[in-house]
């Protein structure tokens, strides 16, 4: 309760332009916003850009924050939108085109679904991370974002929907497709590493 009051007070002060209160908010939330930015962008430079843009937006738009969600959720939403915008720009393609191009319907075939016993035990942590990163990189942004928010960051379906401003049904569909895609890709990459195809 004390924390809630002090956060409300900090926001109110920051909305009036109090620099100390603004610093306190930046200090409190920048580590978590950087973490999500890094996960989404997958490199330090872009994560730093997203971080800075997010807090510049916070400072410029804080007077429009009405407290309907927590400030963290609000910042989180800003950061993911900034990150998605940058990813789209980077790829320089129309988002809807890349989204539809991937043949997700073929990914849920049951005959490719079995995970070989103890496969991952044959790899060290670094190899496994490499595999996970490759699979995540290949996942279209819309799916990767949902997977990161739901399965890695642990947000609920409702919260993920709010952050991304999409319906809960849409979150579920994207999550299902992301999981199936990742499963198939991780299996593929682990087998490639095992065969020495990545210069192991």
């Amino acid at each position, binding site marked *: 309760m004390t924390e809630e009051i002090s956060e409300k007070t900090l926001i109110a002060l920051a909305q009036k332009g109090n*620099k*100390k209160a*603004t*610093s*306190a908010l*930046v*200090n409190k939330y*920048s*580590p978590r916003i*950087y*973490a999500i930015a*890094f*996960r989404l962008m997958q490199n*330090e430079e872009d*994560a*730093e850009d997203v*971080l*800075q843009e997010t*807090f*510049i937006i916070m*400072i410029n738009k804080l007077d429009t924050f009405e407290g309907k969600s927590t400030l963290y959720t609000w910042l989180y939403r800003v950061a993911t939108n900034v990150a998605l915008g940058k990813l789209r720009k980077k790829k320089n393609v129309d988002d809807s085109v890349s989204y539809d191009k991937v043949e997700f319907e073929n990914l*849920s075939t*049951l005959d490719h*679904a*079995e*995970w070989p016993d103890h496969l*991952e035990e044959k790899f060290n*942590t670094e190899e*496994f*991370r490499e*595999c*996970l990163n490759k699979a995540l990189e290949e996942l279209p942004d819309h799916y990767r974002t949902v*997977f990161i928010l*739901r*399965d*890695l960051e642990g947000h609920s*379906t409702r919260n993920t929907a709010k952050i991304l401003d999409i319906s809960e049904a849409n979150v*579920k569909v994207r*999550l*299902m497709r992301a*999981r*199936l895609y*990742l*499963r198939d890709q*991780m299996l593929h990459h682990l087998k490639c590493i095992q065969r020495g195809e990545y210069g192991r």
Partner: protein
Amino acid sequence: MEDSIKKLTDLLNNKLGEDIDDSTVNDLAGLIKQCEDCIINVDSVKHTINLARTGDFEVLIPQSVSKRLFEALGLDEE
């Protein structure tokens, strides 16, 4: 037939996402037990999620990044 498989796959993924109530989970658990392919499918997706969580790592903000952030915002670091 394909429709029912799709419906089941959707339900299974909702189950993995813990988005359905206990009684539906129990109904599904009964159905899954009778379907070898469903067990394989659910287990492999569950496995993927667990492995992704295990392979994930804590991201810490570098001090230099934090310093530049405060500079860019024209604020003093606390």
